[in-house]
C-alpha cells in the first residue's frame, strides 16, 4: 500500500482499540508488576470511546479524526495515559490536518508527531522505561527505510513492528526513570514496561490484521 486513506486510518484505530480492549487485564498485570496496575483499564477505557466514535463520525478527514480521538481520551481518561495519549493524538491530528490520505513519508511524520506529543507532555526519552522505548525506535526504523527509498507502508510498518518489539523487550533490563515504576528503583528490573508492550502489540496487530494478508 502506498497511501493510507481516512478509512484506512479508521481501520488502524479500530485494530489499536481492539488490542487495548482485548488486553485490558494483561496490560493491568504488566503495570501491576512495577506500577499500580491500572494502565490496561485506562487504555481500554479511552480506546472504547475512540472505537464508538469511529462509527459515529464518518465525515472527518484524517487530521480531524486523530484530533477528535485525542480530545476524547483527554476527556475520558486520566492517569499518565490520558495525558500522554491525548497529547499524542492531538499532535498527530495537527500533523495530518486537512489530509484525506497519507503517503509513507507523511505516515512516518504523523507518527513522529504522535510520539512528539507524548514526549512534550511526559518528558521521557529513550531509556526511561516508558512507551517511548517502543515508539521511538519504531519511528527511527521507518525513517531508515524511507532513506533507503522504501515507499510502501506495509514494509515500513513491518520494520516498525520489529523495532518496537525489540524496544519493548529491552525495557525489561532497565530501571524506570519516568512513571510510577520509578519508585521501585532497581526492583523495576526484570519486568517490561506495560506501555511499551502495548505499543509493540498494537504494531503487531495492525500488521497482522490489515497489512499482512
Amino acid at each position: 500500500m502506498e497511501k493510507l486513506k481516512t478509512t484506512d486510518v479508521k481501520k488502524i484505530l479500530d485494530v489499536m482499540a481492539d488490542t487495548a480492549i482485548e488486553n485490558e487485564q494483561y496490560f493491568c498485570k504488566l503495570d501491576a508488576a512495577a506500577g499500580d496496575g491500572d494502565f490496561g483499564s485506562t487504555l481500554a477505557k479511552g480506546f472504547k470511546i475512540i472505537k464508538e466514535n469511529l462509527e459515529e463520525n464518518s465525515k472527518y478527514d484524517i487530521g480531524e479524526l486523530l484530533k477528535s480521538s485525542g480530545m476524547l481520551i483527554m476527556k475520558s481518561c486520566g492517569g499518565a495515559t490520558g495525558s500522554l495519549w491525548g497529547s499524542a493524538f492531538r499532535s498527530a491530528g495537527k500533523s495530518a490536518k486537512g489530509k484525506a490520505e497519507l503517503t509513507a513519508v507523511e505516515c512516518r511524520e504523523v507518527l513522529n508527531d504522535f510520539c512528539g506529543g507524548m514526549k512534550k507532555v511526559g518528558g521521557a526519552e529513550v531509556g526511561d522505561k516508558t512507551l517511548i522505548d517502543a515508539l521511538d525506535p519504531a519511528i527511527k526504523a521507518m525513517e531508515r527505510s524511507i532513506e533507503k527509498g522504501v515507499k510502501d507502508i506495509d514494509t515500513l510498518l513491518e520494520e516498525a513492528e520489529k523495532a518496537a518489539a525489540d524496544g519493548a523487550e529491552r525495557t525489561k533490563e532497565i530501571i524506570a526513570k519516568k512513571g510510577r515504576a520509578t519508585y521501585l528503583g532497581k526492583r523495576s528490573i526484570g519486568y517490561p514496561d506495560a506501555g511499551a508492550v502495548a505499543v509493540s502489540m498494537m504494531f503487531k496487530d495492525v500488521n497482522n490484521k490489515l497489512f499482512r494478508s
Partner: protein
Amino acid sequence: MKKIINKPETVVDEMCEGIVSAFPGLLQLDAENRIISRKDIDAAKVNLISGGGSGHEPSHAGFVGTGMLDAAVCGDVFAAPSVIQILEAIKLVRSNKGVLLVVKNYSGDVMNFDGAAEMAEEDEDIRVEKVYVNDDVAVTNSLYTVGRRGVAGTVFVHKIAGALAEEGADLAAVKAMAEDVIANVRSMGVALTSCTVPAKGEPTFDITEGDMEFGVGIHGEPGVSREETVNAEILAKRITDRIIADIPFKAGDEVALLVNGLGGTPAMELFILNKEVQKILDKAGIGVYRTFVGNYMTSLDMAGASITLLRLSGEMKRLLDAPARTAALTI
C-alpha cells in the same frame, strides 16, 4: 475480592454520590466530571482544588468544606483525573482571587493538572497556581528523576493553605504557605497486605504472612524493599528515624503528627503505633503540637500505616487550629 460494591466500573461514580448524599448541606456533585465541591462556593476568596486517583478516601473529597478544599476532582481508582475534569473544576470554583491546585507529585497527576491549568489560563482567563506535594521519603534512589511522590502530608497542605485562603489571603500568599508546608512535611508508609483494585479483582502484589512492604506508595505500587514484619516499636523507629533524618527534624522543633491508616488497619493498631512514635519524638526532643490518628490518605483496603511529620511555624500552628468543617475533619 470481597468488597461492598455493585460493579467495578461504577465504584467511583457511586462513591461520589455516596459522599455527597451523606453531606447534602455541605457538598454538591458534578456527576459527569466527578467534581465534589462546596455548596457555598465563594468567588471572593482563593479557591483550592485537589484530587487525584480515587481509592484514597477520605482524600480528597472528605476534605472539601469550610477552611480546607473548595473542590475535589475524582479520577478512576489510582488514576489521576483527566485534563477536562480538572478544567471543569477550575471553572466551577473560579474566583477573582485565583485558584490553587494542590497536586500530589505523580507523573499522571502532574501532567493532567498542568494541562488543565494551562487551558484554564489560556482559554478561560482564570489565574491558576499549582503546588506539588512530595512528602514521601521512601524513595531516595539517585536514578530517580521525577522527584518524591506525594502521600498523606497532602492533608496538611489542604488544612493549612485552606485555612489561610478562608481568611482572605491572596493567591501568592496561599501558594507560598502551601509551599512552606510542602517544604516541611515528610512521610513514609508500610504495607502489611496489598490492596485490591476493584477492576482487577485480586491483590496488586503477593505478600506472605511474615513479610511487609517497607516504603510503600498509596497505589499498591510495591515499596522500596520487602522486609520481615517487626513489632510496632521497631516499625515506628524505622519509619520515624528515616523521616527525622530527612529534613532533618531537630530537638526543639514543634511538629504536627499524622499516624495514618491505609484503609484496612483498625484504629487500635494506629493508636499503638502512635504511642511508639510519641515516645521516639519525645526522646528526640521534638515537641508534638497536635496529633491526628486515623484514615486520612488510604490505599483502598490495604493493611498498613504511614507516619507524617510537619515542622510547624507559629503561623502554621494558628492555621492548623483554625476552624474546618468538612466530611472527614472538623476542627
